């Protein structure tokens, strides 16, 4: 039965989905090609729609429960706040990129962009005026409302404190009376003690009742007034944009690289002319020195880039780079050691205590140890040849490799080496004895046996171990970055936690989702690799 092209395409798509592990989209592809529509719609509703509904239900629960829980860092953010935080991060990142581009813009493009930006500023300022007015209006409304709600409570508080003061003075009078009676010998000392205790109690009760009302007032004060909040947000957004646009103007006019370069060239030409017009030798020397210095600074200027601040995307890049460096280090150690352990039982027996003791150690501990031990190699990181070499490379230089990155990578390697090592050893040790017999009958030498039979037979387990290693490494990295000063997603989370701005909590949740998403993609990548090398067609768990 010949396959039509449609069928060929369909089976190719299905095979792609099978390899990448996204078999949940299988029924949709089949439905699109018209195969058994009833069965496919059933499968879609069972395995796609219902899970989507479930996830939406969880999100809904989050939306409902979050505002009910008040923490000292503000409310728990709802999904829309987290989304807004994500867009803010994205805008910031794209703005940094625009600034970097503006810095090196030159010629007529620069002038055209400058014109466009100045016009935009004018419109934005007008918008800001309107929004500020609206905000002022809302603030006035809010203040008025607040006053209305608080006034009765304040009155109640005033009367209550008056009452309490009276009670206290009564109790204090009782103390003096009791003391006088004691002095006169009419009552025992216990009466004085009782009177003092009574006064204390009255004081405490008074404070308690007052503080109840004060708390109520505070609660009302801390309630957010929605229109004012959203007005404030829009004002902030426009103000931020104006600030950005003004900076752009700056980069397009005064701080622009081409302008600065032109200025420097002019200066250089003037200096050269001066040098040419020099009369004495001494003057010539000093002028020549000046010319050389100007030429050097001109060269530096023309290669300058805008040093942008750290954006989330740069941090993600850095984190990914670190985790891959650490993972490759772990793989390079684990695979040969694992093969050795699998082949030789003595080696396995030697390494078992070391593996058992060091496997459960937390990454935090490794990070501190590595900071001390590996830090001794880089006593002066700024002038260490290794870092100078890395900075000079075109792509790695942009990442900014510093000792902190090396510490994080070492920590990742240390924690990720154990699953790969154990699985490789297991894979090599548990080869089918039939394959070993084949090797014996064919009289394969040691290296032939290793490369042709042992390693291919063990590859599925090796890749399973590598997959676990990458997952562990990613988890460990975020923790390590949060603690060390290596810039990355972990540092992003830690900074937000220390920061305490209005979007910190939302940013932390945003980082949580980003870390999870990237971890998922890394895992998928390893699953695909694992599927390519597994010859037993074994499926993988989630």
């Amino acid at each position, binding site marked *: 039965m010949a396959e039509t092209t449609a069928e060929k395409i369909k089976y190719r798509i299905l095979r792609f989905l099978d390899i990448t592990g996204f078999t949940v989209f299988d029924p949709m592809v089949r439905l699109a090609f018209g195969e058994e529509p009833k069965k496919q719609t059933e499968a879609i509703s069972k395995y796609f729609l219902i899970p989507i509904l479930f996830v939406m239900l969880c999100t809904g629960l989050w939306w409902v429960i979050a505002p009910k829980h008040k923490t000292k860092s503000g409310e728990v953010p709802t999904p829309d706040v987290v989304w807004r935080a994500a867009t803010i991060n994205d805008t910031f990142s794209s703005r940094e990129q625009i600034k970097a581009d503006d810095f090196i813009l030159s010629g007529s493009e620069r002038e055209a962009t400058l014109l466009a930006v100045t016009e935009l500023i004018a419109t934005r300022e007008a918008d800001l005026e309107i929004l500020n007015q609206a905000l002022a209006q809302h603030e006035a409304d809010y203040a008025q409302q607040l006053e209305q709600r608080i006034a009765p409570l304040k009155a109640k508080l005033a009367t209550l404190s008056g009452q309490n003061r009276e009670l206290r003075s009564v109790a204090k009078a009782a103390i003096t009376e009791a003391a006088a009676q004691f002095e006169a010998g009419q009552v025992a000392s216990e009466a004085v003690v009782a009177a003092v205790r009574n006064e204390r109690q009255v004081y405490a009760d008074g404070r308690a009742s007052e503080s109840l009302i004060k708390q109520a007032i505070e609660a009302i004060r801390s309630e957010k007034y929605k229109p004012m909040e959203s007005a404030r947000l829009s004002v902030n957004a426009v103000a931020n944009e104006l600030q950005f646009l003004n900076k752009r103007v700056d980069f397009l006019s005064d701080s622009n690289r081409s302008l600065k370069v032109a200025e420097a060239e002019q200066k250089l030409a003037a200096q050269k002319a001066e040098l040419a017009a020099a009369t004495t030798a001494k003057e010539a020397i000093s002028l020549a020195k000046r010319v050389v210095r100007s030429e050097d600074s001109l060269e530096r200027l023309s290669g300058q880039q805008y040093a942008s601040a750290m954006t989330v995307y740069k941090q993600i890049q850095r984190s990914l780079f670190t985790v891959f460096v650490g993972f490759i280090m772990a793989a390079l150690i684990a695979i040969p050691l694992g093969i050795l352990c699998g082949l030789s039982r003595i080696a396995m027996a030697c390494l078992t205590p070391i593996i058992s003791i060091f496997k459960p150690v937390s990454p935090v501990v490794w990070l501190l140890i590595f900071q001390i031990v590996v830090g001794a190699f880089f006593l002066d990181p700024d002038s260490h040849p290794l870092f100078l070499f890395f900075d000079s490379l075109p792509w790695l230089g942009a990442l900014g490799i510093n000792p902190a990155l090396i510490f994080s990578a070492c920590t990742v390697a240390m924690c990720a080496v154990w699953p790969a090592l154990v699985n490789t050893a297991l894979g090599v040790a548990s080869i089918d004895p*039939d394959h070993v*017999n*084949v090797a*014996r*009958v*064919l*009289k394969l030498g040691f290296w032939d046996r290793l490369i042709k039979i042992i390693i*291919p*037979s063990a590859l599925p387990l090796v890749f399973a171990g590598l997959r676990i290693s990458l997952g562990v490494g990613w988890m460990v990295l975020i923790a390590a970055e949060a603690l060390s000063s290596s810039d990355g997603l972990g540092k992003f989370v830690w900074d937000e936690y220390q920061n305490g701005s209005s979007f910190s909590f939302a940013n932390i949740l945003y980082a949580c989702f980003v870390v999870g998403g990237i971890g998922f993609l890394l895992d998928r990548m390893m699953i695909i690799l694992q599927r390519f090398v597994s*010859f037993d067609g074994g499926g993988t768990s989630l």
Partner: protein
Amino acid sequence: MAYLEIKDVHLGFGTPDNRTEVLSGVNLSVEENEFVAVVGFSGSGKSTLIALLAGLLQPDSGEVMVAGQPVKEPSPRLGIMFQNYSLLPWLSVYENVELAVKQVFPDLRGSALTDHVNRYLTMVNLLPATAKKPGELSGGMRQRASLARTLSMQPEILLLDEPLSALDALTRGNIQDEIIRIWEQDRRTIVMITNDVDEAVLMADRIVPLTKGPRATLDEGFEVGLARPRNRTTLNTNPEFRQLRSQISRYMRTLNDESKQLNQQTIVDLPSTMPIDFSVLPNRPAKGRRRPPIFDRETTFFK
């Protein structure tokens, strides 16, 4: 002196105080280019015997000699075909055979190598499936691939360890014919382990039964005097074949305790009951119906 000889071999497994003697006092002589079949029950040590012949195991005492030299280690000269094929699952059929050929004939390169490999694949009729991996093949095809690999090493002795026991009867017949055909084309010494007496009588020159383990030994063999080529269809009516087959089967049955029990003649008393005589039961059909003629027939049992 025989080409392949097993002299008084003992082999056991386990610790000294808990030892299972699998083979005890085994003797066998195989002439050059003879086809010997060893029949035995499951678990009687057949695979151990073949592993001994191939050099994969060393006997506790006694010797295994091939062409006068003791067998100390496995080598491609003793081509063993395993019971569960032992094809490397990550290589295709072609690559599996190529691996063996490259090992045994390291000087073969390029087109000579390809021709050599393809010749044996054609011999077992697997040419259309050379690029497939063993996981994509059926049991019969895997067995043929394993046979091709063993043959391509051009071993002096072929040791077949229950090669066809995992296959269905039809495929079994096909591959039996192929083995016979290849043997007749290219005579070699073959020692085949099988549990099917018919197969042994069809294919072999001599049948040697392996007694039941532990402490299994090889008894005197039965010579198969049937002329070659043997026709499977006419063999069933050949009196010599039937006599030989029943002789061997009867002998095998005496070896096994369980089948000894089955063999016993026992007389069992049937219970004394009297069947019911249906002819005396009233058989009045419903009004207007004729009585069916079956009830008019005489049905009498013991009265």
